[in-house]
């Protein structure tokens, strides 16, 4: 086990009520976000990662239900807390930057008012002057000119600027954990790179732990220390970033890394992943990846693999790594 987990998800199950019945988008997923690092979660569309963070932040849509599992923040289960206790944690201790958050800024409020409103909604202790002073510091951290930006309305700012405002906003209450969902989507290459650099700097200066959820592997390659990989509602591997890219254990991770073209290097060994993403209404038996796995064995079709530790940097849910098979 790691030194201390800030956030721990244990055997979480999230289901949606749809016309065809119940759709299980997160199926007994477990992972830990240790304190003091930037952690990633990668997965393709439909793998359940967005629902996972919705469950953590309490933003599931009306037809979404958490039917099993625990979400522990510093040891305490969020799912068992009272509304008041939750309010103190969500948005204060754990802040979130949503995907395309640029669109969630209120068009009739100035940026300064956004900061003041956010603080007011959580604890009315700080005076407006103090809030704005703090906001200016944060805006400088994201390379925005505080005076101009604070006095602007959202539509006066570009997409990249809005995204940076959102990041600054998320930090105003001094959270211990910052969750980001696709933080660089819809931004041009330079802005993407700049924002990732900023996140790293913020992490270093403020010692905030970060949890970045994305389908874009290069993001994780650039700033994460460790990352989990999600497939069809399950976490299939958790490893530190170099292991993930240079020496992945899970066949899906391996195949995914091989399926990404790059501007550098030899492209002849790139291969697409055969087959198609599985249906969540009728998922494959046993290990979800078995229909597409080049190493599939009989047991993979029958039983779901638990986590096996490859070494202290890599955990993988794959029968290839059970004691019998490795020994």
């Amino acid at each position, binding site marked *: 086990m790691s030194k201390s987990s800030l956030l721990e998800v244990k055997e979480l199950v999230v289901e949606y009520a749809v016309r065809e019945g119940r759709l299980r988008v997160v199926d007994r997923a477990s992972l830990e976000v240790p304190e003091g690092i930037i952690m990633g979660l990668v997965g393709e569309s439909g793998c359940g990662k967005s629902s996972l963070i919705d469950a953590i932040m309490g933003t599931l849509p009306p037809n979404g239900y958490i039917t099993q599992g625990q979400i522990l923040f510093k040891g305490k289960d969020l799912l068992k807390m009272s509304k008041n206790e939750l309010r103190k944690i969500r948005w204060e201790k754990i802040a979130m930057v949503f995907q395309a958050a640029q669109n969630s800024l209120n068009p009739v409020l100035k940026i300064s008012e956004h900061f003041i409103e956010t603080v007011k909604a959580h604890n009315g202790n700080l005076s407006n002057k103090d809030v704005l002073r703090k906001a200016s510091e944060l805006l400088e951290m994201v390379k925005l000119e505080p005076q101009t930006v604070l006095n602007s309305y959202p539509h006066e700012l570009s997409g990249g600027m809005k995204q940076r405002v959102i990041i600054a906003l998320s930090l105003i209450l001094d959270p211990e954990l910052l969750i980001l969902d696709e933080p660089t989507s819809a931004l041009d290459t330079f802005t993407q790179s700049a924002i990732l650099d900023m996140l790293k700097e913020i992490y270093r200066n403020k010692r905030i732990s970060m949890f970045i959820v994305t389908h874009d592997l290069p993001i994780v390659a650039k700033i994460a220390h460790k990352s989990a990989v999600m497939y069809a509602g399950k976490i299939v591997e958790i490893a530190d970033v170099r292991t993930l890219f240079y020496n992945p254990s899970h066949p899906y991770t391996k195949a995914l890394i091989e399926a990404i073209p790059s501007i550098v290097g030899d*492209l002849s060994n790139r291969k697409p992943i055969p087959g198609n993403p599985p249906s969540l209404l009728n998922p494959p038996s046993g290990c979800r990846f078995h229909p597409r796995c080049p190493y599939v064995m009989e047991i993979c079709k029958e039983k779901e693999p638990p986590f096996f530790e490859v070494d202290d940097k890599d955990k993988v849910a794959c029968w290839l790594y059970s004691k019998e098979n490795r020994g």
Partner: protein
Amino acid sequence: MRNSLVELRNVTKYFERGFIKKIRNYAIIDVNLAINPGDVIALIGESGCGKTTLGKIVAGILRPSSGKVLWKGKNIWEISKSEFKKMRPMVQIVHQDPYASLNPARTVYQTLAPIVKKYKKPKSSKELNEIIIELLEYVGLTPPDYFLNKYPHHLSGGMRQRLVFARSIIPSPKLIVADEPVSMIDMSLRLSVLRLMRRLNEELGIAFLYISHDLSTARYFSDKARLVLMYLGKIMEVAPMEEAISEPLHPYLRALLSTAPIPDPDMARKRRKIKLKELNIPKEVSQLKGCPFSNRCPYSKDICFNKTPSLIEVRRSHYVACHLVKELPEWIPPWQEV
């Protein structure tokens, strides 16, 4: 160019807004481009650079504000409607969103059948079926019988895009304009669609205008591709793909190569960055005067703001639009150890 399939000469396109005082927004400024049979052109640029507009002009869907659009030497906006109708099948288009490109109320069979009937003129419904099945097999939608009655919402993004490609090759086109064809598809499925495109180019001889913001997929698509780099409506550099990446000339391309996402942790972190003068694109950019990259370019001088650089052949088949190209420092790939 005698041989060319599609040629754009001095094409400019602007969009006007406003009722009394008209504001002109230039999407493309004075662009020249020639696409020959079997060519693969990778038109690369960020969103808003005009590449989609350029694609639509090449495909004959959008009319330029000035300049000529020539298909097989004929100006398509000057010939008669019936003459254009005859040439219409020559250039086809594949859009970014495979779901929007398909009629949600039509099955796979119903989507393909009318087009096959029109272009292949099958003599019986049995022949029609055979052609459709052959098509589905060619694009990798197998087993074909499984797919015939499916609606678009039953298919994954990759499958939908294959169907769109299947549809687009029925008229035996000579050129396909593919606008971000894989950016809305999952990463694990992208390569298979890119491979399909490669087959269409190599086996059927179809030329491609591949429009994207992503250099890495363009590079994978075809190693003999020609890179055309656009920025804010103007072409900045034209070169063979591998040469463009190993010996980039334009500062914009150099900056892109130093910030483009790389799925390799060591390289991504050690990469040396080119610092831009400004991160934000200013709102008031004079679109016509000077080099569009001048306010961000780390090397820019006065001349860059005042005079528009023209595309000059600096090496064989390698063109750049930059006043300072001879004065730029030598290029060392940012991922290489110094």
